[in-house]
């Protein structure tokens, strides 16, 4: 029980205390562009957090189907940011070492920022394919469009302020 309360507290700390005021109206689910693929729905996900059901809340596809479009957040009649609840769960999933392709993509993305200060899309896609080879067909299809147009850049740009960026990422995640 204590662990569950602790989980709920962490979600509220990261996503805002107003999550407690959720009336389960489902406006968030009805607004979500990927709702048709979600189980649990975003509404149900918020409920799982409030019930402290950590495992169910962290281990599902829903949090990775969120596109961060913020329509739920624009529309919520209680001023809750369901998108921030998802972000909180992504962060907690990272701490709990939940593994999967989506988690891997976020990690690779953040590692590039930490190492270079910027994103180099082609190397990022390459690294991701090592983790998720099933994505190769899509990358090939896109490569066929982008390469002839000169829009694939194999190089990596490193900024001068890399130490500062690393500090931002390492220090500020402590809260």
């Amino acid at each position, binding site marked *: 029980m204590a662990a569950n309360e602790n989980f709920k507290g962490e979600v509220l700390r*990261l996503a805002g205390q107003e999550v407690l005021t959720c009336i389960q109206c489902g406006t968030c689910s009805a607004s979500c*562009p*990927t709702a048709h*693929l979600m189980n649990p729905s975003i509404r149900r996900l918020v409920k799982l957090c409030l019930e402290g059901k950590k495992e169910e809340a962290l281990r599902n596809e829903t949090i*990775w*189907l*969120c*596109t*961060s*479009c*913020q*329509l739920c*957040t*624009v*529309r919520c009649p209680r001023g809750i940011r369901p998108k*921030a609840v998802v*972000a*909180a769960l992504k*962060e907690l999933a*990272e701490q709990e070492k939940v593994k999967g*392709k*989506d988690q*891997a*993509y*976020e990690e690779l*993305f*953040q590692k590039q*920022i930490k190492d270079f*200060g*910027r*994103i*180099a*899309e*082609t190397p990022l896609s390459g690294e*991701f394919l090592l983790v*998720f080879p099933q*994505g190769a067909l*899509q990358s090939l*299809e*896109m490569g066929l*469009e*982008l390469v002839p*147009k*000169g*829009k*694939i*850049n194999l190089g990596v*740009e490193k*900024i*001068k*302020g890399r130490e*500062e*960026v690393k*500090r*931002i*990422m390492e*220090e*500020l*995640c402590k*809260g």
Partner: protein
Amino acid sequence: MKLAYYPGCVSRSTGKEMDVSTRAVCAALGIALQELEDWNCCGATHVPNELVSIGLAARNMAQTDLPIMTSCSICYSNLRSASLAMEDPEVRAKVNAVLTKKYSGAKIRHALDVILEVLEKNDELIKVPLKDLKVAPYYGCLLTRPKGGIDQPEFPTILEKLIKTLAAEPLDFRLKTFCCGGPIFMPQEKAADDIAFLILKEAKKAGAEVIVTVCPLCHLMLDAKQKALEQKHKEKIGIPVMYVTQLVGIALGLGPDELGLQMNAVSPMPVVEKIYERLTKEA
């Protein structure tokens, strides 16, 4: 007008024509852009920790005293969210504690809004009116979110206003602020494809000759993926997708090379030819 310019990471690869056309249009409109010193990635939609995300944006904002303009909706949304969050003294203190140059306030502008402001005052700059061109105004999601930015978060009209200023016809486009799926297209291909195709089909139904996008991820989903989506769904779309800056550039009389039109996957050249044909016919 002099502004600091934040190109964003995609300007170096998949969104090159966004950067090229932004610079060309601003030069033609007399807007001087100074690229932000040693800028870093804004984190896009892949940094779940809010304080880290604010910190990444704040480092960029602390590099200049000028208002900052960007063409990317995601960068715009992130910089704006961070500037709002930095109003909280506690957040500002925490973030400034790790920044080398301290943040002391910033004004964030989107290229769309800057361009419209200049064009409304100087409509003689429109050399090639885009008469009768049917344009689907596609905003995507983050340009207008969180609320309080360039326009209303759900029913914005600024893009239609710009399209009308160019003498083109903005279509009634039902899915104009519906997300394109771009942020998850790598790990969640099916989900992203479903929504991107829905948007393309809607544009076709509306009778669009061209779809205009603001965000580089929307552009990638609707333009670079269009052929693959057509094959997957066995339905022809065949609509060119232009960045708003490319469309403005055509109306300013800039050439295809100056606007990076050869970099679009679905060639916009037939539409450009049609625009000039209509213009000659009228003359």
